[in-house]
Each structure stands twice: as C-alpha cells, then as structure tokens.
C-alpha cells in the first residue's frame, strides 16, 4: 500500500475543510477502502477519518422517520434500529461480526457496490441521503455501479428512512463473498409499495416497478406470479447467468412479501 497522511478531525466542519485538498479522501470503517488501497487501486494522499466525529454517529426514531448518522456501524444499526426491524435485520447480516463492528452505512452508500445490501434499503424506503451541503432523494442518488450523486469532498452525514408499515429484505448470498448474489428489499407504505433489487444489475441497485404496481394493489406473494423480471442488462458471471438472476429477483420478491405480510 502506498503511504498517506492520516488525519482524524473531531467535527464535520474540520473534516470538510481537510477534504478540500484534492488528494484527500474520507475513511470511515475502511472495510472497503483498505482492501482497495492494498491492491493499489486507490492511492489517496491524505485519509480523513470520520470515526472520531460524535455528530456522525447514532440511530434515532422520530415521528415516522428513522435517522442514522453517516459513520454509524452496521453493528449499531442492527442493535438500535428497532423502529425499522427489516433494516436492523439487513445490517445484522452484512459480512461478519468483525466487519459489522467497523463498516458504516455512509461508507456503504458512498461506495454503492452493485452487490451491497444498504442501497436496496435506501431505494426501497425512498430514503433521503443527507450530506454536509444538501439532501438527496434516493431515487436521484444512485447513478450506476460504484457511482453516486456525491460531489468530490462531499460527505454523507446521515440517512433518513421513512419507517414502513411492513418490510423485508431477502438476500441470496454469493457463497464465497457473502455479498448479495441478488437481494430484494420490499417496503410497504400507506401510499404504495416499493421494491428495490441489488446484486443483479450492471447498473447497480434499481426499482422493479412492475412488481411495485402489482403489490400496491394486492400485497401478497401471488400478485407477482404473472410477472417476469427482464434479464436485459443483468450481471452474468461464474456465480449465475442473467437469466438465473432474473428468476432470483422474482423468487426473492415473493419471499420478501410473504415474510413481511
């Protein structure tokens, strides 16, 4: 790994100032960034740690909204997001306990790995990504594999999730990495159902709108029976063909609805 300067500010304002340097990059749990730096795929001049900033950590529920600080670990979300059990369960199944004790929601959403779990929860919940400068709707935030609406030096300070009436996440694990080979998050709100799919598309997380329409009028697993998820643009690799993933999308959607209902 190439060497770099390490700084650990105590506030968001100091972190933002340190990130003005073009060569600087934020470091949260490091569970994605450290492996990529070891492979020399990434070589920041300065790493600005976000792990010493109390205002970035915490889980709070208030009037139908669950707010999670950007540097909150997966373990803390699993333990404290009791107002949104499907989200707590998702966090508690990311990686393994050691990964969950370091990895954070902000790091996961900033990275937008096409097989990561949190992007599906954010998109299915119509969450709001809060940064040091603005608020971004999940529908505008995810812009394809490893690509987001974040600008250089912009940091995720928190995420606001409207809490659903019912929700469930089904992850079909890729057996070696334990990321989602395909994962489906279904969330039912008073004004309709949202279905987000991760792990399947070359474009990263996306909404399965046909299933949303069918489930909004009839929230039962059977409502999806007549639908077929398209294999166009889906990932094909040694773990599964695009057609296999398309079938998984439907199967996992049905399982998620059955588990939520």
């Amino acid at each position, binding site marked *: 790994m190439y*060497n770099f300067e*390490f700084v650990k500010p105590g506030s968001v304002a100091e972190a933002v100032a340190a990130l003005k340097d073009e060569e600087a990059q934020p470091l949260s749990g*490091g569970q994605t960034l*450290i492996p990529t730096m*070891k492979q020399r795929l990434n070589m920041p001049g300065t790493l600005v740690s976000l792990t010493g900033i109390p205002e970035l950590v915490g889980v709070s529920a208030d009037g139908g909204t669950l707010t999670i600080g950007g540097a909150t670990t997966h*373990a803390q979300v699993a333990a404290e997001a009791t107002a949104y059990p499907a989200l707590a369960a998702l966090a508690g199944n990311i990686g*393994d*306990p*050691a*990964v969950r004790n370091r990895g954070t929601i902000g790091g996961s959403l900033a990275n937008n790995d096409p097989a990561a779990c949190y992007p599906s929860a954010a998109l299915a919940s119509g969450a709001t990504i809060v940064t040091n400068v603005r608020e971004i709707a999940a529908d505008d935030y995810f812009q394809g594999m490893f690509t987001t609406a974040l600008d250089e030096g912009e940091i995720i300070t928190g995420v606001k999730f409207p809490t659903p009436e019912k929700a469930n996440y089904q992850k079909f694990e890729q057996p070696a990495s334990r990321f989602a080979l395909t994962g489906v998050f279904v969330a039912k709100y008073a004004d309709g159902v949202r279905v987000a799919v991760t792990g399947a598309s070359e474009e990263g997380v996306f909404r399965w709108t046909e299933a949303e329409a069918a489930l909004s009028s009839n929230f039962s697993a059977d409502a999806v029976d007549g639908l077929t998820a398209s294999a166009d643009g889906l990932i094909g690799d040694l773990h599964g063909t695009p057609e296999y993933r398309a079938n998984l999308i439907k199967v996992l959607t049905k399982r998620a609805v059955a588990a939520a209902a």
Partner: protein
Amino acid sequence: MTTLTMKVNGKTRTGDAEGRTLLVQFLRDELELTGTHVGCDTSQCGACVVHVNGKPVKSCTMFANEADGAEIVTIEGQAAEDGTLTAVQQAFQDHHGLQCGFCTPGMVMSATALLKENPKPTEADIRHYLEGNICRCTGYHNIIKAIYAASGQDVSSIAAE
C-alpha cells in the same frame, strides 16, 4: 511517523506507525505480539481478530492510527500470568478445536466476544457468528463443540459429524 499509545492487554504501550501501518503490523512488528496471525490480509479469514474497545475487529483491516488511545485485547491477553487457560482456550484443547493452530487466535477472540454478547448460544448462533473466521484444518465441528462446551452447555447434544 506518529507515536501511538494504546492499552494492550492491560498495559500501556507506545510505538511508531506510518499512516498505512495496519493494526496487525503494529501489534506484531512494533509491539512484538506475534500471537495475532495474518492468514489472508484481505479481510476474509479472521486469523487477525483482536478486540478494540471490547469489540472484535479484523486487525488487518484497520489502521493502527485508528486505534490510538484504544484498549486492545489480543490472544496474549487471554491466559493468566501463570499459564491458566481461559474457559474458551481450555475447551479448544479438550475438544480438539485446533489442528495446525493458525486460525486459533482469531477463533478464540471471536468465540470470547460471542460468549460475552450471548452467553448461551445455540449451535446455529455459533456458526453464524464465526462466518468471518476460516479454518483449513478442523472442518469446524470441534471448534463449534469447544465453544458450546465453554458456554457450559452439554456438547453431547451436538452431532458427532
């Protein structure tokens, strides 16, 4: 280089680290605590698990700088000064929970963390908790048995194979 200070296995220790120095390198090379192993260096195997402020983490995937001022517990901090093993360590010996022993420091540190969070885990709880700890020798069954026994539960209820 910066000078870091940590409380390691109850003793205050200082040492020098670059930005890129991993916690596991700091423990092994700077503090000469070589009980913590590096199996993969890619966050997969868990041989490097130590406790940072009471929580298990993969020390190959954390910078030493992030642990400045923290309390670290490693495998060297388990047995008593006179060599008396902890319940988890003793159970690994009694139930043949190790063969080559390479994964064992990480297994013991993960198992110890599990029993602190969940003193009476089921077999399924143990297997789920050890998802990030890989063993190339034992086939896991005796590790699971050892942890189950260390929790004070009757291991005869765990399948033999």
